[in-house]
């Protein structure tokens, strides 16, 4: 069972995001970076599948700066076998990113290609299905868990107002979201082993971004709220405000 997992290095989800002086970037001071949480679900799914199959290889692939090595090493420490870093700029044009990844994945033989459903920085939720379309492979997005049966994968996905079970022919692209399996933490042994695992770094094929970032802004601060009162006695006043002031009920 050979699985390729596309991952991304993003600011830790607890990071406070501030716009920098240019007005078109974030202040990176003090920001810790980590594997995007959705990608961690994808790595975990790949490792479990490989372990269940008892054979195969899990390869990590990313586009990013050299600093992404650290993120790839984390995935290797979790248990992936090898990693490829395409060094290049990541833009807000998801199609440009997808083309770079697709160029690397074109013709590659693997049973499954996994991605996190979205990256926790740009939140575009588009690269996975784009990679699938560009490489001509079938794709299921929003997969919380799946099982492989021969040449198909049975995927469980959540949709508005319900859930679906979807069968897809392999090789397939699956975009993973949160599911029953918590991503594992790397053990010390894994961290030591990761240092010796192959990590290939090479320049990415460049695709010009056709999405121009004009500016970045912090969300408008919410007008300061008020404490209506304490305990159940405050409820009538809350209800009055919701009806008369906020027009919310």
């Amino acid at each position, binding site marked *: 069972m050979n699985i390729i997992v596309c991952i991304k290095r993003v600011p830790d989800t607890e990071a406070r995001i501030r716009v920098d002086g240019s007005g078109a970037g974030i202040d990176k001071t003090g920001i810790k970076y980590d594997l995007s949480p959705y990608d961690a679900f994808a790595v975990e799914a790949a490792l479990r599948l490989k372990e269940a199959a008892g054979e195969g290889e899990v390869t990590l692939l990313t586009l990013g700066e050299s600093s992404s090595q650290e993120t790839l090493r984390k995935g290797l420490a979790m248990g992936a076998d090898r990693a490829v870093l395409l060094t290049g700029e990541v833009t807000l044009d998801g199609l440009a990113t997808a083309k770079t990844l697709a160029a690397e994945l074109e013709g590659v033989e693997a049973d499954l290609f996994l991605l996190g459903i979205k990256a926790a920085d740009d939140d575009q939720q588009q690269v996975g*299905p784009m990679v699938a379309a560009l490489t001509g492979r079938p794709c299921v997005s929003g997969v919380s868990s799946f099982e492989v049966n021969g040449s198909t994968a049975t995927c469980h996905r959540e949709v508005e107002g319900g859930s679906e079970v979807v069968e897809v022919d392999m090789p397939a692209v699956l975009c993973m979201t949160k599911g029953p399996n918590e991503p594992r933490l790397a053990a010390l042994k894994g961290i030591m082993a990761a240092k010796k695992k192959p990590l290939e770094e090479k320049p990415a094929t460049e695709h010009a971004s056709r999405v121009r970032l004009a500016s970045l802004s912090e969300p408008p601060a919410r007008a300061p709220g008020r404490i209506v009162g304490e305990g159940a006695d405050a409820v009538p006043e809350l209800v009055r405000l919701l009806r008369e002031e906020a027009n919310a009920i």
Partner: protein
Amino acid sequence: MANILAFAEQREGQLGSAAREAVSVAARLAEAAGGAAHAIVLGGPGISSVAAGLGAYGATTISVGEHDALADYNPESWVAPIVDQIRSGDYAAVIFAATTLGKDLAPRVAAHLDVPLASDVTEVELSGGTVSVTRPVFSGKAFANLEIEASPALVSIRPNVFQATEQDAVGEVSTFTPDIDVSALRVRVIDRKSAAEGSVDVSEASVVVSGGRGMKDPENWGLLEELREALGSDAALGASRAVVDAGWRPHGEQVGQTGKTVAPKLYIAVGISGAVQHLAGMRTAQTIVAINRDTDAPIFGVADYGIVGDLFDVVPRLTAEIGALKAGD
């Protein structure tokens, strides 16, 4: 003069707010561009009768692809008719709703057309032939203002953010039957479970009642269920990550990072302290109410109205008061 296309999503043969919002945005952009708004709907036989209703939201023409295989969403059969429609129309922009379906479909269409996609936008304008959008990044901790330097510009709009605007207008419906080889589909939906009858998804609800650790025990969710019922049929239950991770509530209810982003008219956070990942998923709600024992809980920093106190006293009272109010309406 530029026309704008809206992909109007149907679910179980019905057009909901996602379709109306997409068509309304297309109509607004078309007016700015001096062109017309068109809509495309894909569905099973008979869908054209409901699709006609989109004329009232500003679609001058409504193309309806009818086929047994289009009754339910399948990416393998839905992409081609939309790509064909876009290619035939010389559109300046194409609007999708950023629903589960739209987020799955739009990237595939973008890849086939070789044009970029701006996902989940909260603002979109068309000026001087250029489409510019605002969209949340870093889970809503910042907003990016983007210009799309390609035509057509593909955009998916965040549900509940844009107004669906009814007009005194009628659209012209034309029906076509796409050529679909069902046996060639590489993706097959083999089971579909609907949530409880009449329930609305947290990402689409106009009122959300969310519970966190402060609820103490999954057995106590009946309190929130009663409050939800009092608020009406547009209300849904949400949950913090902590209670989903603890197995108290299903992941489908999780609000925030690794869960759903919601923008309801009213968000009531009960026993939720307000971790930054949770705030990211609900801070664009119009009105936020927090009920929490801890005066210092971060949720009070984003709440419009807060009650400090024991939720087990406050929530039943709130349910009773809202129930009485609705009964008097």
